[in-house]
């Protein structure tokens, strides 16, 4: 749908010939991928295909053995998650990484709390920015003051995505965003993810649900045992092809 737009824009993230080995074991080999602003790319593959390793490389937790990571035409070397965040990359982890007994607004600003000129927490700003964003993304929580543990799974996921959205200027990585959710909550989270497109950031989503992948993504990238099997435009492929690529059982 917005393939024309995406094609014109420079990629926010460019991975070229990424390779990662642990000791003698190759976890990822020759992986290349571009994500453009406003584009949702799905990363699929069976368990152990190397998706988590790839997330950790993009989020700065692992340094690739070889290959380059380019963020908006700038080649970067990241050695921790803080550096990835400084480059505008945010990760929504599978466990959400929320502090359960703190408020929504404190979680939104976790580790990056604004302070006033006396060096004290600027709660008013945190609360108002949280309320604005939560409204924009239509995450239905009781209030910015709500404690995380009082929220439902879908609301928590919404908060985690809202946090990533607030801070990501280039790319959001979503790791299995709906794995723990019910049907209605999944639909709500998918709606939120879809709305991220209009914010002109790239989204890389990892999901085991092919229905979800086909519903949300513009392109699908398939991994199998650390190898990149291929990238398909979602509109020009079908589930059978993707399943065949994931399992390696070509049946043409």
């Amino acid at each position, binding site marked *: 749908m917005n393939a024309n737009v995406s094609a014109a824009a420079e990629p926010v993230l460019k991975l070229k010939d990424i390779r990662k080995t642990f000791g003698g074991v190759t976890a990822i080999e020759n992986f290349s991928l571009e994500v453009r602003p406003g584009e949702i790319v799905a990363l699929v593959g069976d368990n152990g295909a190397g998706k988590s390793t790839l997330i950790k490389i993009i989020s700065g937790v692992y340094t690739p053995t070889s290959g380059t990571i380019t963020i908006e035409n700038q080649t970067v070397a990241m050695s921790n*998650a*803080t550096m990835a*965040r400084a480059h505008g990359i945010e*990760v929504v*982890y599978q*466990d*959400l*990484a*929320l*502090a*359960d*007994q*703190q408020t929504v607004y*404190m979680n939104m600003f*976790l*580790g*990056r*709390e604004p*302070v006033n000129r006396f*060096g*004290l*927490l600027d709660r008013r700003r945190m609360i108002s920015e949280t309320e604005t964003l939560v409204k924009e993304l239509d995450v239905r929580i009781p209030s910015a003051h709500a404690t995380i543990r*009082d929220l439902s799974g879908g609301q928590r996921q919404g908060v985690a995505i809202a946090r990533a959205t607030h801070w990501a200027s280039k790319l959001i990585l979503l790791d299995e965003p709906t794995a723990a959710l019910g049907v209605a909550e999944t639909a709500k989270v998918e709606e939120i993810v879809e709305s991220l497109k209009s914010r002109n950031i790239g989204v890389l989503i990892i999901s085991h649900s092919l229905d979800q992948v086909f519903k949300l993504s513009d392109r699908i990238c398939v991994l199998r045992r650390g190898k990149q099997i291929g990238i398909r435009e979602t509109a020009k492929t079908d589930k059978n092809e993707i399943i065949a690529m994931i399992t390696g059982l070509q049946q043409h």
Partner: protein
Amino acid sequence: MSSAHSSASGQPASFVSRLNLQQYVVYLGFLAIFLFFAIVLRDSGFLTVRNLSNIMLQTAPVTIMAIGLVFVMSAGEIDLSIGSTVAVSALAAAVTVNDYGLAAGVVVGIGAGLLIGLLNGVLVAYVKLPSFLVTLATLGLFAGVSRSMTNLRSIPVTDSSFTGFFGSGSFLGVPSLIWWTVVAVVCGHIIYRETRFGAHVLATGDNSRAASVSGISVPRIRLAVLMISGGLAGLAGLLYAGRLQAAKYTLGETDLMTVIAAVIVGGTLLNGGKGTIIGALVGSLMMGMLNNGLILMGLSVSDQMIVRGLIILAAVAVSLREKSR
């Protein structure tokens, strides 16, 4: 109890009962104990200004230590070593102050506390040993150190500026021990509630992985809270030395349980992520009042210990019940 509240206010039951139980239990408990003693001990002098201000003065070191422990427990750690840090700091300060004066005594006394906190902190944050075991070990270790420092002798503190500053003196008509309590509570509360450091302490205790991926240096937080606790235990040692005009290895020996009780009764969760400085203040005043009242009632030391132990049990039960909701 909670259902009565919710039906009265018409708000969702879980919300109301949680707020009430967690936040006000310490104040209700404080009031209940106060009223109990005020009635039972009305002829024993409990309600005299002299007795009540005595409670405040005696409570000062415990309150100061409790503030440190709120930080430690909020970060998901524990510091048992404060029980012997008090004596080490008091003795170190006493020896120094007699020979080199007030400033040196203060630096050495607080410095000793900070160093013990540093040792605990490095072992917990960087060697990654559990704080319970580390501080249990250093509790014993420094109990031994305090005994060997002066061969079990008591060291008198003769410097009048020191005993005035930390003990019997007053400023604007208010005793210095009250000043120390107020300053520590106000500073502690602001740092805990209104600074990024305080927020990071809570996040670390709540979910250390989330804190870590959010860019918070979890080891640095763990080191910092244990050093705060050690430093404040050192200050408590100075207050004891100042008030009693002497230091001895027994100082603070029985405080550990009182401090932990004050903090937990005050509403700080054992497992981290939630706490309050004001609650800890009220908790320690409650403990002080309890000690005082039990003495006035004529209970023996052993009976006092039993009653205090039972109160800690009750507090832990409430705390854990809240946590498991």
